[in-house]
């Protein structure tokens, strides 16, 4: 099973402040532990929202809103993609992330959709695809 662990932004990350050497070392050790355990598939840190934008689509138009965005705590500053045997395992790993010297370090853990999560709804699409492949194969034959 796959999970995304979203690191929430804070005032410092939004201000573009770089982590301290201590923080970098602790996070590096934690990442290394995740890699050595074979659970970390990917992970990145993000620039502050002032370097980004939102692309808003509505039924009639598309609007681009440049950052920064105000609601700091709702923003994200980074993520991990994890592969674990269960939700509880992914949670247990995230409980081991380094604690901050001050303030709060918030990680939001969310399961990634897997094919089987789609259940019945997945079948028509697959059937359609299957029909398409069949047609293609016959064309090639």
């Amino acid at each position: 099973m796959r999970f995304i662990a979203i690191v929430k932004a804070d005032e410092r990350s939004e201000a573009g402040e770089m982590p301290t050497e201590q923080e970098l070392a602790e996070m590096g050790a934690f990442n290394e532990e995740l890699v050595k355990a074979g659970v970390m598939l990917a992970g990145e840190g993000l620039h502050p929202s002032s370097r980004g934008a939102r692309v808003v689509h509505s039924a009639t138009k598309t609007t681009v809103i440049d950052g920064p965005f105000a609601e700091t705590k709702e923003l994200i500053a980074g993520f991990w993609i994890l592969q674990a045997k269960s939700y509880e395992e992914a949670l247990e790993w995230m409980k081991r992330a380094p604690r901050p010297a001050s303030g709060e370090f918030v990680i939001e853990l969310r399961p990634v959709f897997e094919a089987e999560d789609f259940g019945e709804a997945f079948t028509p699409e697959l059937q359609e695809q299957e029909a398409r492949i069949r047609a293609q194969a016959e064309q090639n034959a």
Partner: protein
Amino acid sequence: MSQPEPPRATHGAIEAVWRIEAARLIAGLGRLVHDIGQAEELAQDALVAALEQWPAGGVPENPGAWLMAVAKRRAIDQIRRRERFERKQVEIGHDLETRRDPSEDDFDSVLDSAAGNISDDLLRLVFTACHPVLSTEARVALTLRVLGGLTTTEIARAFLVPESTVAQRIVRAKKALAKAGVRFEAPVGQELAERLPSVLEVVYLVFNEGYSATAGDDWMRPALCEDALRLGRILAELVPGEPEVHGLVALMEIQASRSRARTGPGGEPILLLDQDRARWDHLLIHRGRTALTRAMALCGPPERPALGPYALQAAIAACHARARTAEQTDWARIAELYGALAWVVPSPVVELNRAVAVSMASGPAAGLELVDQLASAPELASYHLLPTVRGDLLAKLGRLEEARGEFERAAALTANERERALLTRRAEECAGANAAS
């Protein structure tokens, strides 16, 4: 106001901690007691204690240390009991080498001496669980149990065998290791390189067991792919200088990247070239290619790397992964890689694959020439893919009557119903087309 909830730990949470801690715990204990069987039993005792105490008291702040402390106390109790027993034996006239009563401090100093060197402990665990004195089945069961943190029940469900069979395999494996006097050690240097294939074989076998599972199977079977990938990734960090470890990881990552695309809604297989490439997992492909790059960097000069069998198979898989459509596949490169693979591990099956690649690169006649050279290989005498491939090439060359014969022969050889139906249909199509012309 509601009462503050007491800290509770669910069964799932305890299992999760176990999954994370089991290998390190058993590896650390193995170094203390020099015996993988005893180490595993001590770790299980600690798990039982956790299952008794954590549901009410919650998961401790440092669960790994908690488990180790419990297991260590049990180990000391056991050693003391044995010493008392041996002392009694002395009293009735047996020999006893003088040994000091062990204390917790002794154990702590052993553990501390290699603190931060969990990797060495894990490496010992890997090589002991995959020791060549054990049968492949025993190696698989023991590895999943001690390194993968899987329960006997989970292993049994995944391999479609009764739980008692798996339990027996593990008990026998432990006995075999004790009987052969296998010490809890990891090989070094040349010996490590020599024994590595027995470890990689176990990991790839677990992967294939999961990969061959079909849609209707219990989810435990496909989950074996993830277990194998995880074991492979752990190994790659334990022996980062061994190219074949990265080769195997690359091969598994790229194969796993296709898992969503390789079966249809009814569970029927979709062949590689017919798969919807948009459904391939590009994160896994990227990881596979990175692992392959690591393998190649360790394999001699970049212009002519001497790749091992896993890295070569990964390189072939990577060729397919690189092609955005089936038509863009670099068949010449794939044929070349199969040639290298046949040289490293001579096998008519590899040669047959090479023949297919050559036919895709240079036309059916060139492929047929290679296939015909294989016709007399005794290993392929009852292998249905030989007449299947030959029939396919003959059909492309318009030699339909011969092609029909090959498809009929292949249909008679295959054990798979769905495949037989397909081959029979192809034979009929050849006959029909021949009659029409």
